[in-house]
């Protein structure tokens, strides 16, 4: 079983397909859960403390907007943990923690420079493309340890 990071990191389809094929999908909700359900909520309501942007400093410089560093505090550890990646380019709609274009560029860059196997895809628009989409993910995941 490999740990596979998916981009967009909140994708339902990608995380489901990864889990369905016996691997572990690395997704943002898990990190969010750790923060918001922690026993000691130090900074209500979301428990995002000044420490989070500091964690993001590992991935982005201090002059980068704190929103990028805050997001990287969630997504950066996932990239470090990842053994493979599935990236869907230009989904056309990204919201919430995936809704920052600069963060998304940085996430894709860090994934690509990590040197792990990466599968690049586009979301399907018809049945033929959907079959190829699923088939490519299946073959990619079967090729992992």
């Amino acid at each position, binding site marked *: 079983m490999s740990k596979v990071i998916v981009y*967009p990191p*909140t*994708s*339902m*389809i990608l*995380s*489901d*397909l990864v*889990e*369905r094929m016996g691997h572990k999908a690395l*997704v*943002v*909700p*898990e*990190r*969010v*859960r750790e*923060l*918001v*359900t922690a026993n000691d909520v130090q900074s209500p*309501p*979301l428990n995002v403390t000044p420490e989070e942007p500091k964690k993001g400093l590992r991935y982005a410089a201090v002059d980068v907007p704190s929103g990028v560093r805050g997001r990287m505090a969630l997504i950066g550890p996932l990239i470090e943990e990842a053994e493979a990646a599935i990236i869907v380019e230009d*989904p*056309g*709609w*990204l*919201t*919430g923690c*995936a809704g920052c274009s600069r963060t998304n560029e940085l996430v894709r860059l860090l994934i690509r420079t990590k040197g792990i196997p990466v599968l690049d895809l586009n*979301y*399907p628009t*018809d*049945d*033929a*493309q*959907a*079959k*190829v*989409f*699923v*088939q490519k993910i299946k073959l990619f995941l079967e090729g992992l340890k």
Partner: protein
Amino acid sequence: MKVTKYVITSSESDILPSDIAMKIYGSKYDVSVKETCFGVMVSGEEEVVNALVKDIRALDPAGIFIKDRGFPPGDPRRCRGHRGGGARPGFYMIESESKMLPMISRALASSGEVLPIPEKKKPLLPSRLEEIIKEDLS
């Protein structure tokens, strides 16, 4: 550790969110369930929820999708009942991807050979167009 998962049904699936909720109510699992328009949210201990979603997926393996959720169901920090209405931020992503679920379901259900998609014809390069014009005029 307590976890929360979405169980989302494809719009073409024969299984309704209420069917899933009824199955969970009648099951042996100690979890809390919230029914939504697109599926259900299941919350409980991690091992219990994982075993339960495996059982639920068996109802329609190609038409039921599972997604992790950070906040517990009804959490006042996210629940629209406490925030004065409006969808929670993560809903828009689910809404957008839900439109694709019927296609993905059919792709998962099909076992036939996958035909390669023919490449789109590239537009004629301006330089080639100039050559054609020159050939015709000369």
